[in-house]
């Protein structure tokens, strides 16, 4: 029930922000579409039962700025390589262990790896992620496991 209510509130906020309309006809149409969405989510069984997922966006608030800062740093590093006349790249493949037990943690981790230029996650197999790194430095950055630890905090095991 908690999950349904939080989903309803989220949908109402998103609908109001995206439409900006306040006349009764459109509001009731919006309410109808939200109810249909809730019904479909209930039928698909994707509503979280105990309201645990409400916490994820809140924990993202601390993870996201760190990720943005990492993105800016690696972006500058890769841009340097592109503009360098000698093009100092040394691509290699590395396997990174992930400590994430759940699918959500793995998804966030693999997505974050790809989001920072210089590393692309190529395949996820069990708790191992095959990563293509553009040079030694970005690979070493990943091997320290800092990102893995921070993702653990997002999904709640830290």
């Amino acid at each position: 029930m908690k999950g349904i209510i939080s989903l309803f509130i989220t949908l109402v906020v998103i609908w109001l922000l995206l439409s900006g309309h306040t006349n009764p006809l459109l509001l009731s149409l919006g309410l109808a579409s939200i109810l249909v969405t809730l019904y479909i989510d209930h039928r698909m069984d994707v509503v979280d039962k105990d309201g645990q997922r409400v916490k994820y966006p809140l924990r993202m608030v601390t993870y996201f700025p760190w990720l943005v800062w990492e993105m800016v740093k690696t972006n500058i590093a890769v841009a340097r390589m592109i503009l360098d006349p000698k093009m100092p790249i040394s691509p290699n493949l590395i396997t990174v262990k992930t400590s994430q037990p759940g699918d959500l943690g793995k998804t966030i981790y693999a997505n974050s790896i790809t989001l920072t230029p210089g590393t692309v996650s190529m395949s996820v197999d069990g708790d191992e992620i095959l990563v293509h790194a553009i040079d030694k430095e970005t690979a070493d950055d990943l091997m320290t496991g800092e990102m893995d630890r921070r993702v653990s905090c997002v999904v709640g095991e830290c």
Partner: protein
Amino acid sequence: MQLVTDILSWFFLLSGGFAVIVGSFGLMRFPDFYTRLHAAGITDTFGAAAILIGLSVQAGLSLVTVKLVLITLFILLTSPTSTHALAKSALHGQLKPLLKEDGGASSNT
């Protein structure tokens, strides 16, 4: 106040545009498919995000800004997914990545 937002938004717009140009330049310079993915990553992440942030600063506090911020978030969610899909299908298609052979201590695959 107008001047501050203008400077801020132009800073983001210009650095985003620069990132897109650098990314496409790298797309042509880099030697193989996998390294080109990294160059395209600059265009995807920093280029697109910086341009959208610059536009939302220009739009001020309005519903348009909310939409622009949502677009930024969705781009940051979907572009790594599509990059991963490309890399994975290339790997399954037996495309061998170009690797640096000397001193490859960390290339244990």
